[in-house]
């Protein structure tokens, strides 16, 4: 292949606008998983907050996605956080009662537990969110395929990850069609909710009816053939990334082992 061909194919790969984006997807995925597990295993406040403040936030700033990350994490965490706080604060047994709502006592122990869960959740959602914001699904899946993942599994993974935006797109089209026939989807929340119901059936059914034809179209393109594929492009990988991954893995194993054996000191 000519240099122009190589350059063209590399242009098809997802853009990497920052040095964090340029990290190999596998490295970023491992970092996100290690940070998340470590935050949960270490527990308390200092550990998860240290991971959040010293690893996730600087990386997000370096990638230029700090604002989006905060927004995405809030959206992802908020529903779980609300339920965790309510359940922990009002149902956790404790000796110090802060206030009472009906039959429920809000205890200091409950607030403390909710706080610890919250910082872990924030670290987890930002770590995973950072990976999602700096890595296109196809880049990650292709990288896994290069490492030995079967093409069929790679396709299934990408199709699943890409299905959500496709369904949202379809919902928009159906919503526009329903609106044209007089469906009210604006105004009060109750009206909006009523407007969503007529969309559910067509969105789900049209997705299902297309499955067969899409499957056939893939069959025609030799999708079921077994064996490795030659990928058009690969994500870059610096020579130091593999050692870095091993270090991350080793640190994680040490933390988990130390916590399990009780060798890890209790940090507030």
């Amino acid at each position, binding site marked *: *292949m000519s240099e122009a061909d190589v350059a063209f194919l590399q242009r098809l790969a997802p853009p990497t606008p920052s040095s964090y984006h340029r990290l190999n997807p596998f490295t970023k995925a491992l970092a996100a998983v290690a940070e998340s597990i470590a935050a949960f295993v270490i527990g308390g406040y200092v550990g998860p907050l240290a991971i959040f403040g010293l690893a996730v936030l600087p990386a997000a700033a370096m990638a230029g996605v700090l604002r989006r990350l905060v927004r995405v994490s809030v959206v992802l965490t908020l529903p779980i956080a609300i339920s965790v706080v309510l359940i922990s604060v009002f149902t956790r047994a404790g000796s110090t009662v802060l206030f009472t709502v009906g039959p429920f006592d809000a205890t200091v122990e409950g607030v403390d537990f909710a706080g610890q869960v919250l910082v872990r959740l924030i670290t987890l959602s930002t770590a995973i969110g950072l990976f999602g914001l700096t890595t296109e699904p196809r880049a990650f899946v292709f990288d896994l395929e290069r490492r030995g993942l079967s093409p069929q599994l790679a396709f299934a993974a990408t*199709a699943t990850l890409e299905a959500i935006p496709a369904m949202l797109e379809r919902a928009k089209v159906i919503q526009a069609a329903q609106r044209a026939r007089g469906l009210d989807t604006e105004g009060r929340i109750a009206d909006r909710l009523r407007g969503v119901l007529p969309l559910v059936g067509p969105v789900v059914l049209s997705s299902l009816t297309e499955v067969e034809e899409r499957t056939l179209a893939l*069959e025609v393109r030799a999708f079921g053939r077994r064996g490795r594929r030659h990928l058009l492009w690969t994500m870059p990988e610096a020579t130091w990334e593999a050692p870095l991954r091993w270090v991350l893995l080793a640190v994680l194993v040490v933390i988990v082992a130390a916590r399990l054996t009780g060798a890890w000191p209790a940090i507030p």
Partner: protein
Amino acid sequence: MLELHRVSYRYAGYATAVLHDIELTIADGEIVGLVGPNEAGKSTLCLVASGLAPASIGGALSGSLSIDGELMAGRPPHELAERVAIGFQNPDTQLSGVTATVFEEVALGPMNLGLPVAETLARTREALATLGIEDIAERSPNRLSGGQGQLVALASLLAMHPRHVVLDEPTAQLDPEGTRLVGEALRALAATGTALLVTEHKTDLLDGLCQRIIVIDGGRIVLDGPAGDVLADERLPGWGVEPPSRIRLARAMAGRGLDLDLIAGTLR
């Protein structure tokens, strides 16, 4: 050469057959048109001729499909894909939904075949050029018009270099220019020895493109002959098929006592 011998086909879960006693041979380099009213069995015949029915969608088939003298019964769909390609009328369901550019979409089939990157690159470029869509190579497949999507789907088939192509209303969503491009591509394809079966409602496209035309009604072939003879057959409207515009014009003029050939000669 693609041959269907005494083929009848019944969909899984249905009591009655959709196709009855079909006898069809398509020679290398021949373009055969397939017309008929709605529900006549055209799409089913396309599925059977491509081997997808019953290999992929199940159902019961009697008779035989053979390609280049080899019986196709029992072959897996990906093996059939290298011999016969099929294109459907809805471009949305023919795109994989996992690629970020048109180039990668067209390259998906050759990649699945395990071809080297240089070969995939060459085939993809050739297919895009044949349909005149090189300029949208780096565009997202999710941002295409219906016509562009159909051309991309067709290019995806051409990149597989099939020796036999079955197309179920390939120009249903194309504008006149797109239809012309597809017609030219099919002619070029046939010139390389590829056998084509094309289902179309646009008889203007079939007129001049096909050597032979088959009319199907109620799952049976009711007329099979040279394109000129079939398209001029007085019974065509009775089968729900509109003759091409040149024949309708000639008939309308003849109905008013005018001779089209005479007028054409006068104009010359």
